[in-house]
């Protein structure tokens, strides 16, 4: 299948990437996602200290999408190293890359956590500066301004210069292109776009927000056009930086659209709810079949296609067609 995907120094067996926070809590699940067709798998974001996450309800299917505020439960960076080591070993034979996702409460701690996770030698690091669910605790997400996003990037690159860094951006900003440019300028090697879009659901019978955290992040189909637009704008801003296009991808056609918008790889998360545990394989196979049937020999063949405009042959008024 024509799915080999060059990504920075790596060649991924497929452009499909397991998104952070989906299944990434154990080596077994990360390995399962790789076996199911992912070219790279992202671990659940780990932070400086163990964290319980939010009280339930933490995730809700509201029809056009999901809303979650899991609240970044994780065993803390030190224990995460063990999970990552185990995962790395299990992934070895699949060829899939391991992306270690992490977050922190301060710029400095981003660097510290990265340094700890680096012990496991993941193929890539992913700085989650965009989780909307820890907002109230830490103030605005770091992804909210170009300055804070760049500051985190610099701190991480300084702490771990030898592992390429993906920075994961948020959609709730009026200019994601500018923020992408700032983090690339600060040393980011790739962008993951996007994290969830902040939202809320209210149960009218009780009059109360459904998520215990009240606010959560919208993912799934509802997020798809938002993600596509973000990826398009980021590619315009930093055309040479690889993007993992993430948000609402549910079919192989969605994945193709992401590549056309400017993504090099395609993150998948909520689709597992919508299409079941086989979603990763289905999306990978559908994409391969689509590329094949349209005469493309690789995902790269359609990369950023939407930025190239068709030309129409517009002569002056054609003479009435004789026939």
């Amino acid at each position, binding site marked *: 299948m024509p799915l080999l995907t060059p990504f920075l120094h790596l060649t991924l067996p497929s452009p499909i990437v397991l998104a952070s926070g989906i299944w990434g809590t154990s080596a077994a699940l990360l390995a399962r996602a790789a076996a199911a067709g992912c070219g790279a798998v992202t671990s659940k974001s780990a932070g400086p200290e163990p964290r319980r996450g939010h009280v339930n309800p933490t995730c809700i299917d509201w029809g056009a999408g999901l809303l*979650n505020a899991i609240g970044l439960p994780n065993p803390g960076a030190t224990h995460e190293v063990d999970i990552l080591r185990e995962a790395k070993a299990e992934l070895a034979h699949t060829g899939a890359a391991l992306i270690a996702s992490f977050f922190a409460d301060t710029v400095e701690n981003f660097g510290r956590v990265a340094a700890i996770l680096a012990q496991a030698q993941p193929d890539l690091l992913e700085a989650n500066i965009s989780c909307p669910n820890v907002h109230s605790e830490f103030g605005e997400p770091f992804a909210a301004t170009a300055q804070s996003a760049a500051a985190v990037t610099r701190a991480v690159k300084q702490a771990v210069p030898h592992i390429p860094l993906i920075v994961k951006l948020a959609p709730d900003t009026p200019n994601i292109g500018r923020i992408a440019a700032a983090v690339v300028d600060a040393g980011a090697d790739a962008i993951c776009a996007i994290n969830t879009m902040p939202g809320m659901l209210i149960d009218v019978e009780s009059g109360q927000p459904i998520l215990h955290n009240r606010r959560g992040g919208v993912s799934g189909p509802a997020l798809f056009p938002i993600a596509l637009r973000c990826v398009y704008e980021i590619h315009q801003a930093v055309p040479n930086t690889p993007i993992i296009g993430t948000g609402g991808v549910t079919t192989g056609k969605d994945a193709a659209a992401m590549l056309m918008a400017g993504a090099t790889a395609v993150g998948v998360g909520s689709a597992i709810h919508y299409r079941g545990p086989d979603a990763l394989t289905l999306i990978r196979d559908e994409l391969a079949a689509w590329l094949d049937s349209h005469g493309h020999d690789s995902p790269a063949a359609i990369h950023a296609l939407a930025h190239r405009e068709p030309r129409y042959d517009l002569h002056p008024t054609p003479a009435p067609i004789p026939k």
Partner: protein
Amino acid sequence: MLPQAARIVETQRENANTRTFVFDAHWRARPGQFLMAWLPRFDEKPFSLVDDDPVTITVAAVGPFTRLLHRLEPGDRVWLRGPLGRGFRPEGQRMLLVGGGYGSAPLDFLARRAKNAAITAVIGARTAADLLFVERLARSGADVQVTTEDGSAGEKGLVTAVVEPLLARGGFDALYACGPHGMLAALEALARRHRVPAQLSWEAYMRCGLGLCGSCEHQGRVLCLEGPVLSFNNCSSRGRSFTRHV
């Protein structure tokens, strides 16, 4: 699926710390499937279905949420999401059911759904006062055997002490069990040794309930979606499937 408000129609005392709640909700579900019960701004927790029509759960008061549930009365509301997960698939004519603690709850539902089968049920608990659903299972036509850790009722010891000789004697098409991890692990080993297909309902810490967050993982599977019942077929090394064995 959004949580739907349901009213408690009836509550029943099952034992010292366990109550059954009947709701004004009517679903179609399999035994072994579960629901998430929500009390707004408090918490949302998983409970096995004891019946689907009307929706019924049996709850042991073990912590803040279950204690609050126990304070509720007919007319009060609880918000329900479900049925979730995969349940038991009644297969075979001779079924061995094993329950520990509130693990007996889905087993009675299973027994009622497998009416034409010959059912043996082994119910274990710490003490006689902790036993659950012994009478219900008997009413559902099961041959019920009881074990308690302190010997205050039935055989003294763990359920495995009764199950082991039953499996050794043979004559069961499949084993169905629900209860604490340790019990299930022991039963899994027994089932493998005696080459009996088994369907085991594992508990897990549920968050999303949608198969995404990984919180409920067990052996590489997300139990909220692919469980809580996991089945395996031990009856042949030749890949005869569980269903074909019936």
